[in-house]
């Protein structure tokens, strides 16, 4: 009886795993097919004729390479800048002696609740006035600003867990705050920085609303927006669109494949802190 029950549970788990993966399997296979195969000859099977040309065409003619490099730049910069400034602010909040630290921390924590929609129009106007809208800086500013609260939450909770003795010795030896932060603190908080960075990276790489609103020119477009316009342009060529979508997904899947435990931990932590 118990064995039968276990087997039924196992089958349910397998069925749900199939439901979660099958759409992605279908995406990957049709990204390598021609329309003739996708539209009737070979809907579900592996491609008969592996058309890697879909990928090269999307990258060169469709401009996906440019969007890809833009997205790498936006995400990389956002992760680096957010990491540094929240590591610093987190240190000040968790370790330095001042009266307002709890208040400031609570203030940042409220930021997690703010939906991006609610800031969209004023941001649009202010970036336009500053002449930054439509360029790299004009999108990086909101990306970094909105990534700050969550990154800070993750780092502060880590800071609170590390013993003070580590820094104490070096302060007594006459080490300055900046040097101590750079040589002692940063190496200690590496794991928390990794967790925060993964969270920031996924959020930035996949972001749609800011990128769609604040950038007009295709030169500065991110992958999500680029592929939306790309799929409008080539709407009948499914293989090509599929290839572009796989290219857009590859970096996050690769990160997830190699760091699945850290990615899972990072997103769970984000939810719990939020």
């Amino acid at each position: 009886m118990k064995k039968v029950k276990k087997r039924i549970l196992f089958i349910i788990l397998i069925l749900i795993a199939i439901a979660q993966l099958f759409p992605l399997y279908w995406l990957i296979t049709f990204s390598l097919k021609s329309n003739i195969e996708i539209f009737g000859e070979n809907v579900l099977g592996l491609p008969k004729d592996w058309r890697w040309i879909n990928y090269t065409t999307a990258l060169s003619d469709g401009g996906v390479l440019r969007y890809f490099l833009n997205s790498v730049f936006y995400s990389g910069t956002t992760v680096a800048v957010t990491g540094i400034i929240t590591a610093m602010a987190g240190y000040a909040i968790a370790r330095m002696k001042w009266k307002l630290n709890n208040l400031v921390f609570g203030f940042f924590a409220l930021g997690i609740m703010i939906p991006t929609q609610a800031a969209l129009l004023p941001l649009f106007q202010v970036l336009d006035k500053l002449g930054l809208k439509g360029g790299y800086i004009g999108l990086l500013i909101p990306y970094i600003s909105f990534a700050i609260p969550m990154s800070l939450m993750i780092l502060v909770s880590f800071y609170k867990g590390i013993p003070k003795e580590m820094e104490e010795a070096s302060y007594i030896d006459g080490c300055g705050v900046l040097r101590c932060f750079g040589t002692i603190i940063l190496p200690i908080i590496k794991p928390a920085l990794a967790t925060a960075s993964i969270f920031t990276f996924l959020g930035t790489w996949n972001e749609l609303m800011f990128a769609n609103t604040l950038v007009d020119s295709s030169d500065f477009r991110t992958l999500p927006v680029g592929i939306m316009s790309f799929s409008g342009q080539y709407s009948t060529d499914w293989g090509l669109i599929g290839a572009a979508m796989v290219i857009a997904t590859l970096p996050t899947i690769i990160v997830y494949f190699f760091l699945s435990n850290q990615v899972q931990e990072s997103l769970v932590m984000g939810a719990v802190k939020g």
Partner: protein
Amino acid sequence: MDKMLGKKRYIAIFVMPALLLFLCFVVAPLVVTGIYSLFEYDGIGTMKFLGLSNYIELFTKDRYFPKALTNSLVLAGASIFIQIPLSLLLAIILARGIKGEKAFRTIYFVPVVISSMVIGQLWMKIFNSQYGLLNIIIGFFTGEKFEYSWLSTPSTAFIATVIPAVWQYIGYHMLIFYAGIKSIPTDYYEAAKIDGASNGQVSLKITLPLLTPVIKTCLLFALTGSFRAFDLIYVMTGGGPNHASEVPGTLMYSSLFRRGLYGYGSAQAFFIVIECLVFSYVISRLFKKAEENASVI
């Protein structure tokens, strides 16, 4: 050390970059949206103060807003009554230690890391009337070619966007529950086992009550996520056909950037903020009692 860490200059250097960015580009825009929502404003001309009439208009004169709000509540309902129970069940099964536990966990989570733009485009293809996966599968079982355009028929368009939304985040909720279950000390289970409790009894009497804070987190996440829903619907239907699949987020977007209604669109945006805050408060209050009960165990 305390002397070093009390120096105002260093505190300022460390806090200011993050604080200034946060104040100028997150908090200030939110406040400005709140102010705009009280005015009639087209972005160029003068602003005319209206008080709360933009908000009243949302419910009295707006032809689409009540429908959009209902849609977002349907999405929230689908999350709460389908996604969360299913994720909880999966987490309980996996946490008991079944063969391939880690593989299942990893697989369920895959859709979470994919952008909603890709998820939206992919499901548009699945729902495609002529060549979509869904119609092909239906055709396979019925034996004749099936053609139905899910996304361009008003009665099915919104539901067709709810399905990928629920599908994408099952793994996320599952993982949050899983982490919660794993953090329950094993003594509780051992004690229950010694007393002769069955697996089902253990889940119902020990796991669930101790998971109350985690359930609260997931509920909050599902609710606020549904209220601010935008990406998937924007990609898949754009709120159409004939506004059948609008949510407050898509309505706000077209008010602001297509129709130039800066005041009215800001009221729609700010309404989403208020809605999120009110529901978060209500959920926290409701769970306060439950959490106190759980801590007694």
